[in-house]
């Protein structure tokens, strides 16, 4: 029993990070109907920014995280402006190709700056975890869950209770109609990129607290989060949160049944299965015809 509850706890912790990242994919997809493949790299850069602030500047981790979220939001806006906006009216594959090239570019830049060594900013002593229902959970992990819940709550309030959030939902629902009633969709798109990138940076810092930093850390995390967005129904914000938890649980419980080396492949497998059999996801996002051909 202890093992099962440990696996579930691990799944929920990993899942809450995937959920944070999945929100970025799903919000961008909701408005632009395009897969922002470089999103995982924003996460990685966010983690490295926070790392630099903690290790070189000596800031406390919470402040580093906030600053990293702000800076990453700016990076997200720049990426959209330079790499995606010129292609807004091109065919579907063009922005996907630039996004992939961009993600390789960003990885290489970070590799140049920080070198090939694995970095870590575990600042505190590793403490003995608390035992909750048989699962051992460390303070860090509790912090991850608390941060995730807080950020999601803030996002929820922003989307439902503010004028900007309403405009965002309108733009996601029908971009042309939103433009017609006077919503500046370019601004909304920039805001969506900013929010998504800030959340990804937060996720990057949370991952960095637990694990090591590597220039390629964004790739697998990105694909898992994208899978999470598809599971929940791409374009659907609540679906992304749900999908994140689902993928975290599936992959952690999955290593009961298959060798743990295949853990990272589970997400890809689920992604393909979901796209084939239920492309709208659990909660239903954008129309099914958009995903399946003919």
């Amino acid at each position, binding site marked *: 029993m202890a093992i099962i509850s440990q696996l579930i706890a691990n799944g929920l912790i990993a899942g809450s990070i995937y959920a944070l990242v999945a929100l970025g994919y799903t919000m961008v997809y909701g408005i632009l109907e*395009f*897969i922002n493949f470089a999103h995982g790299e924003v996460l990685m850069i966010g983690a490295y920014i926070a790392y630099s602030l903690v290790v070189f500047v000596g800031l406390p981790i919470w402040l580093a995280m906030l600053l990293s979220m702000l800076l990453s939001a700016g990076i997200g806006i720049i990426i959209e402006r330079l*790499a995606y906006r*010129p*292609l807004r009216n*091109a*065919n*579907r*594959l*063009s922005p*996907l*190709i*630039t996004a*992939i*090239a*961009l993600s*390789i*570019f960003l*990885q*290489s*830049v970070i*590799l*140049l700056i920080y*070198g*090939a060594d694995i970095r870590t900013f575990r600042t505190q002593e590793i403490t003995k975890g608390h035992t909750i229902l048989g699962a051992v959970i460390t303070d860090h992990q509790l912090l991850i869950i608390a941060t995730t819940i807080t950020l999601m709550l803030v996002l929820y309030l922003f989307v439902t209770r503010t004028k900007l959030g309403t405009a965002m939902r309108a733009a996601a629902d029908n971009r042309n109609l939103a433009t017609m009633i006077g919503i500046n969709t370019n601004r909304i798109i920039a805001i969506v990129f900013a929010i998504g990138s800030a959340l990804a940076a937060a996720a990057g810092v949370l991952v960095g607290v637990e694990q090591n930093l590597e220039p390629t850390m964004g*790739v*697998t995390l990105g*694909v898992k989060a*994208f899978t999470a967005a598809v599971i929940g129904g791409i374009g659907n914000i609540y679906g992304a949160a749900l999908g994140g938890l689902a993928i975290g649980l599936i992959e952690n419980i999955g290593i009961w049944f298959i*060798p743990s*080396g*295949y853990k*990272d*492949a589970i997400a*890809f*497998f689920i*992604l*393909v299965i979901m*796209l*084939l059999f239920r*492309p709208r996801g659990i909660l239903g996002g954008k129309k099914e015809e*958009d*995903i*399946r*051909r*003919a």
Partner: protein
Amino acid sequence: MGYVDHLLILVCIYIILSVSLNLITGYVGLLNLGHAAFFGIGAYASALLVKVVGVPWPAALVLGAILAGIAGLLIGIPCLRLRGDYLAIATLGFGEIIRAVMKNWTSLTRGPRGIPGIPKPELFGYAFTDNGAYLALSFVIMLLVVFIVWRMVASPFGRVLRAIREDEIGAMTLGKNIVKYKLIALSTGAFFAGIAGSLYAHYITFIDPSSFTLLETVLIVSMAVLGGLGSITGSVIGAVILILLPEPLRFLDLPSYVKAAMRQIIYSIILILLIIFRPEGLLGEGAMRTSTMRTSKVRAWLLRIQEKVMRYV
């Protein structure tokens, strides 16, 4: 001249890769982000067949390629139902799954430690141990592949492929079984990538999963996009340029990870700039072409040369 031969061998291998990707992405319009996986399947299968089973190299080359082709069919059958960008992500996922298998099926692939000491190919008792001889071998195989793909796309079959790329529903109304055509293009492209894999494995004599990552796929995509999607001559030129372009880096006195990063930066910047400013590449048609395209002097010049060459083929 060992170094020049080495570069030219790589050029031959990458021409096969970019031409085979072009068949899939340029002519039918399926963005395939799992091309490195087909490359890897060919490399692993051929290396293991020769080294462990003791199959003669020519048979291993063909078997490895067939295996890659079958992998193309297996990924194609379910995924061709998906729309363009989802197909791309699904092929990317497939590529990562193949790499996970290479890493984890240690009893077969030795995992991350890779397979060392892959024998050089032997044909009728002659071993291609010398770089010059290997170059001749790769050159002949490359010519053969390019010729076959060229005949394919120039035939009525190729016209259907382009019709599917330009207007899928239109092609369907003409009674074309578009899934069948896509599957043939995908598995043929995968087959040729498998051939490139075998050439690579027996040339380098060592393979490990890190040679078949997404970076490799993106390099191949860059070659095809640079040359122009939907142009075989373009793919050949693209492969030559992108293999030779970062070579001067080799002579700089820098740590190897810096050089690797700089190569990737060069490739990715070229790809981004191309897609934004010149999506049709040097010679491309269709797929990526934008309405505002102008015929440039370079393009006209390249097309003239291509015409002259074709007269002799």
